[in-house]
């Protein structure tokens, strides 16, 4: 492993610990890091404090864990989509997959009265599958020469899905008020139960992604080359479809649609490791968790006592980053394997 990657890994790991502490130590309630860690480590003084138990168990801990799961899921999904479409700007939010998942969830909410985390997972998964299928299909039709056009196709798909979802919501007026906040993307409503239900599936998605790494790395040379090396490109694509659908559904059902996060994490990971996908996934996961944790801590801290939805904050930070990257043309140099 080159020195830069080692340094990034160590620094990133350290930063992750710092952010975890910060995330556990900030928020409603007067408790600082010492109290929270005392409670988590089972010190009798702190365990006896009911209020502290409530704050940690229902507010801070689920939120922190959810940030880790959602950040990792979105980042891995984005890395997979970027490799499969050979497009360094791809990610679930920008390509309209998130909007598809939201549409699925809205249909579940309105017509099937879904209320459990499992139901959310199922319906948002179905929507994400539809979105992924359409995006990958359009991507194949457009060809790899047009990374910018795929973004526009994502805008089009997002408009169609979003239009349908809003039409259904407003024509039935079910759960409009909750949906309005949920649709901005926020971690504030996460619970330990939900995190527990979602995490195994996210891990499954991660395992599937690591299994696909070697084949996807070789497929970056082009389909015919990869086939000559004995790779069943169709099966690999199917695997990418499954993994990214699963991961997107996990993220959506915990936090709502969060855009730009996957793109940023996967982009940074690609800058550090341009070729080998397994390492790229490692860095992408690390960055995804770091960015979302940092954004979530910021969102709690910036406008006290109000809370900024973390999806809004990430859009406000991610959009300028996208502009800068697109303007520099940096995404083109990443298309070719060095």
């Amino acid at each position, binding site marked *: 492993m080159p020195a830069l990657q080692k340094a990034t890994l160590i620094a990133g790991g350290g930063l992750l610990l710092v952010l975890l502490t910060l995330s556990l130590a900030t928020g409603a309630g007067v408790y600082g890091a010492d109290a929270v860690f005392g409670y988590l480590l089972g010190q009798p003084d702190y365990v006896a404090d009911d209020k502290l138990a409530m704050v940690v168990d229902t507010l801070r801990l689920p939120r922190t864990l959810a940030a880790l799961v959602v950040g990792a899921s979105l980042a891995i999904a984005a890395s997979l989509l970027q490799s499969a479409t050979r497009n360094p700007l791809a990610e679930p939010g920008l390509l309209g997959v998130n909007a598809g998942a939201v549409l699925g969830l809205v249909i579940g909410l309105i017509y099937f009265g879904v209320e459990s985390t499992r139901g959310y997972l199922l319906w948002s998964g179905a929507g994400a599958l539809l979105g992924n299928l359409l995006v990958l299909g359009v991507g194949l039709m457009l060809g790899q020469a*047009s990374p*910018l*056009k795929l973004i526009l196709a994502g805008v089009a798909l997002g*408009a169609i899905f979003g*239009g349908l979802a*809003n039409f259904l919501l407003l*024509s039935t*007026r079910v759960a409009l008020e909750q949906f309005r906040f949920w649709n*901005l993307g926020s971690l504030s409503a996460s619970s330990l139960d939900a995190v527990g239900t979602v995490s195994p599936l996210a891990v499954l998605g991660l395992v599937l992604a690591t299994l696909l790494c070697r084949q996807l790395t070789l497929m970056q040379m082009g389909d015919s080359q990869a086939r000559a090396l004995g790779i069943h490109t169709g099966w690999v694509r199917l695997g990418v479809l499954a993994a990214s659908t699963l991961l997107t559904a996990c993220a959506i059902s915990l936090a709502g649609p969060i855009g730009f996060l996957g793109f940023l994490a996967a982009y940074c990971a690609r800058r550090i490791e341009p070729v080998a996908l397994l390492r790229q996934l490692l860095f992408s996961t690390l960055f995804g968790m770091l960015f979302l944790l940092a954004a979530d801590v910021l969102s709690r801290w910036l406008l006290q006592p109000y809370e900024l939805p973390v999806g809004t904050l990430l859009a406000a930070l991610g959009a300028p980053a996208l*502009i800068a990257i697109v303007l520099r043309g940096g995404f083109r140099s990443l298309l070719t394997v060095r």
Partner: protein
Amino acid sequence: MTSIPTPSGVWTLRLGGISLLLHRRSWLMFTLLVLVLLGLTVLATSLGSGHLGVRDVIATLTGNGSRLQEIMVFKIRLPRVAAAIIAGLAMGMAGCLIQTLVRNRLATPDMIGVNEGASLAVVVFALYLTLGNWPWWASPLGAALAAAALFALCRRPGEQGYLFIVIGIALSELLGALGDFAMSTQPLAHLGSIYLWTMGHFAGVSYQTVKPVALLLLLLCPLMALVNRPLALLRFGDATAQNLGVKVPLVQLGVLALAIVVAALGTAIGGPVVFIAMAAPILASWLARDNLAPLWLSALCGAVLLLGSDTLVRVLAQPEEIPTGIMTRLLGGILLLGLLLKDRRGAD
């Protein structure tokens, strides 16, 4: 003296020493669109709660209706129809101006963040700096700021193709996120109509906003007529246009400023109704069989499309009220996808 042959497909109008060439197909289509618009107006006026047939509407419009019918038509139904028409005209014109200027079919005020800027300004003024009435006048302010930011980032939008659009999309995402946040600080009941307005909504508009906007648009019309001809020459490229006597930078700046103001005025009435500004010039250029969308035709197409979408959404969503912008978003998304797939061989 040999006479110059007139091009085909053109009517010649001679008044003494002056002769005017009228593009036959454009004028036919213009008349056709006006008729369609009139028909839609009557249809849209007759739809809704309370019985009012097409015949009653025509009778009322010609001054033979009962008192009740007059109130229904002139006080309740017609303001909405007029608002949709005026906003559609403005959007069609703004879309045509920017598309022609940037030489890109996808460069329209709703894609590149101008409309988002306009609606953000209105939301901020309406929520935090309440000054009595509906702050429709804030929208040109926000639109101009958004456009200034965009053109500071992209110096030569005519040569950047999809890059320009993607940057515009990122900008509109940013502005949209800010608008969402501004609204999320208030409960839905408190927001009232603003929430629906930000999606493009025409229910409950009154003449109070329609009138000043229509008046301003009318005042801008001579300017647009003035700019129409040099704008058509710009499509041959800056150098050729310069040789043909067009003051290129001046025209570009003027057209841009005009387009932004017109787009903002279109947004001011019913909110950012997306994709109308993209679809109208495309439809107009298809109708005129001309690559360059004629400005007036495009304006009429905008009005027909917007009024048509508004009527459609009213019929489909009865008895609920759904923002018109949601219907145009759905249809426009399909249009955009079709355009991209059609242009699949072209690189970025």
